[in-house]
């Protein structure tokens, strides 16, 4: 598989040195009228030039996690913990600092570019407005930069004079990416950035993101429910379930030998081209309701390995194996030893 080579090249650029561009510590987020936190002690780091995938089912909290990096929180949300971007805590910074962070340090690529770009304004206006309104960059300077970035994402600078309705979805997502790069960010957040695109365009956009990360040295947090995509693009993977990180580790190690039953089950539920099956192994049961308190492991009711301790005591997050290059593989499961690999499932 050529993904192996890709990982090798990624690992060389994405070394875990210096301080990370994104460092989430014990992030807990509560919403009004819920019995338990939507995010419950999330720890996550992204180093400069590193690609990190955050995977999980819908409702697991992965989008909330990525949005909290820009402090795009739902109304009434209460937070604990810290979300540091380039060393500064996003959750406590002033409004002015927050605007500066959103303009320059971190930028998000949204899922549906058709909804994310104002249909009544020209592409050029969308690309340049953040810089022009916040940094005192002149219109000519901002347009010059927008033109360069449009070329970098494979579009002609002439699209700046067009309206969103005149471009295809794939082109708009490229515009979205160019817009995210306008402020020369240290961190890119891609929230299901390819989900709304067709498969060919998806592959193009993923390749483009990889190129741009190498070229500009940005950290990339890639939020997706697509495990295959996560395996292809990322250096490290975080698996999220019911607002908690249940497993985290180097992409190759984690996919070769998942240590959390949920990761294993997710992998088993992913359609594979190389191992055709009659039907997919769906995970039985539903993710836990936000209206109910949780004791023990959130996955226990759906887990084939669950025993008494699982429903009584929440599993501690612990290191299972350290990869040779020092990157840790961590899991929060009482019975991680019983979980067998997924590569040979079916």
């Amino acid at each position, binding site marked *: 598989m050529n993904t192996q080579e890709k990982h090798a090249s990624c690992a060389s650029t994405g070394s875990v040195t210096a301080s990370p561009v994104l460092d989430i510590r014990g992030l807990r987020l509560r919403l009004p009228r819920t019995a338990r936190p939507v995010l419950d002690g999330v720890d996550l780091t992204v180093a400069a030039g590193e690609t990190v995938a955050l995977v999980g089912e819908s409702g697991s909290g992965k989008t909330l996690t990525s949005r909290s990096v820009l402090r795009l929180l739902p109304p009434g949300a209460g937070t604990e913990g810290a979300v540091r971007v380039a060393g500064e805590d996003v959750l406590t910074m002033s409004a002015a600092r927050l605007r500066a962070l*959103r303009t320059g340090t971190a930028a998000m690529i949204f899922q549906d570019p058709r909804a994310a770009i104002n249909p009544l304004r020209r592409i050029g206006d969308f690309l340049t*407005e953040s810089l022009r309104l916040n940094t005192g960059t002149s219109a000519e300077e901002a347009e010059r930069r927008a033109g360069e970035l449009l070329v970098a994402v494979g579009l002609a600078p002439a699209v700046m004079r067009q309206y969103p309705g005149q471009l295809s979805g794939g082109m708009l997502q490229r515009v979205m990416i160019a817009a995210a790069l306008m402020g020369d960010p240290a961190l890119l957040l891609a929230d299901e950035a390819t989900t709304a695109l067709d498969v060919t365009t998806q592959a193009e956009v993923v390749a483009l993101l990889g190129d741009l990360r190498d070229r500009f040295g940005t950290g990339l947090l890639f939020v997706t429910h697509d495990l295959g995509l996560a395996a292809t693009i990322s250096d490290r993977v975080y698996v999220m379930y019911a607002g908690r990180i249940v497993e985290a580790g180097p992409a190759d190690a984690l996919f070769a030998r998942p240590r959390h039953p949920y990761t294993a089950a997710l992998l088993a539920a992913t359609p594979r081209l190389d191992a055709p099956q009659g039907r997919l192994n769906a995970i039985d049961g539903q993710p836990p309701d936000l209206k109910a308190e949780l004791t023990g492991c959130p996955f226990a009711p759906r887990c084939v390995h669950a025993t008494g301790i699982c429903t009584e005591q929440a599993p501690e997050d612990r290191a299972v194996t350290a990869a040779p290059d020092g990157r840790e593989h961590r899991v929060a499961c009482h019975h991680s030893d019983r979980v067998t690999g997924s590569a040979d499932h079916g």
Partner: protein
Amino acid sequence: MNFLRFGLRRLAEMAVTLLAASFVIFGAMYLAPGSPASFLLSGRSASPAALEAINRQYHLDDPFAVRYFRWLGQLLHGDFGRSITYRTDVSRLLADRLPSTLLLVAMALVLVVAAGLALGRIAAVRGGAVDSTILVTTTLAVGTPSFVAAVLLQGLFAVRLHWFPAGGTGDGPVQMLWHLTLPAVALALYLIGMLARVTRSAMVEVLGQEHVTVALSRGVPRRKVMGRHVFRNALGTVLTTGGLIVSTLLVCTVLVESAFGVGGIGQLLELSITTKDFPTVQAISLTMVGLFMLINLAVDLAHPLVDPRIALGPRRSAA
């Protein structure tokens, strides 16, 4: 479809509409009870000879079709006929009266647009108690008919406080503005409420859209997002009420002009209807239809400027 073709097409449509309107207007007066002759005689019994003389002078005995086409022919030559009550050319009457009405409607329109948009925008942006207050106030405004507003404003600002004259039109531009202030407010009140509510709900709808969150997530200041994205995108919805606003102004000006004794075409229309002054009523009605169509044309032409997704011309059947 290009601008010129669109313009020509609309002009042709307007001509047809005007023709249809002229027929309805003429027919309505013909069907209404009473006749100018009986009004002129005002209850006195006249000799059949005198009655016949009046009927002959104003062609009241001719068949409907003959009278309609004679009137239409005169119209095409710019001749609205002679007023039966005032015994002068209707075009003279209109030329004398139209400026005060146009000034009144224009003043009211400025008030409606300025206050309506501002109140709607403030309600949407601020929310909370400010929003509730504006909602309650505008509900009150929408529930008050313009003639009631006229009486209330007269009672308070003219009779009690003597800030403004209670009626009349005034001579000279400054006097006219001063005289027309209260009527303009009375005329505008209902529409300010309506426009504020339309603006507010259009903005609230845009506020929930993803591109607003995206703009904020890119560090665009909230105040700028409100102007450049939320208010800007709400304008299309607001513009569609433009035709309705102007037509309401034209209709309500009849009541307000009468209440304040403003010598405009609204008051003239009311007087002419009670006196069965056929030519005058027809001319004023047709003028109002024409004004209304011009405003609608302006709104349609402005739409693509506000929303680039809208192209000029009829909606394509498949899209």
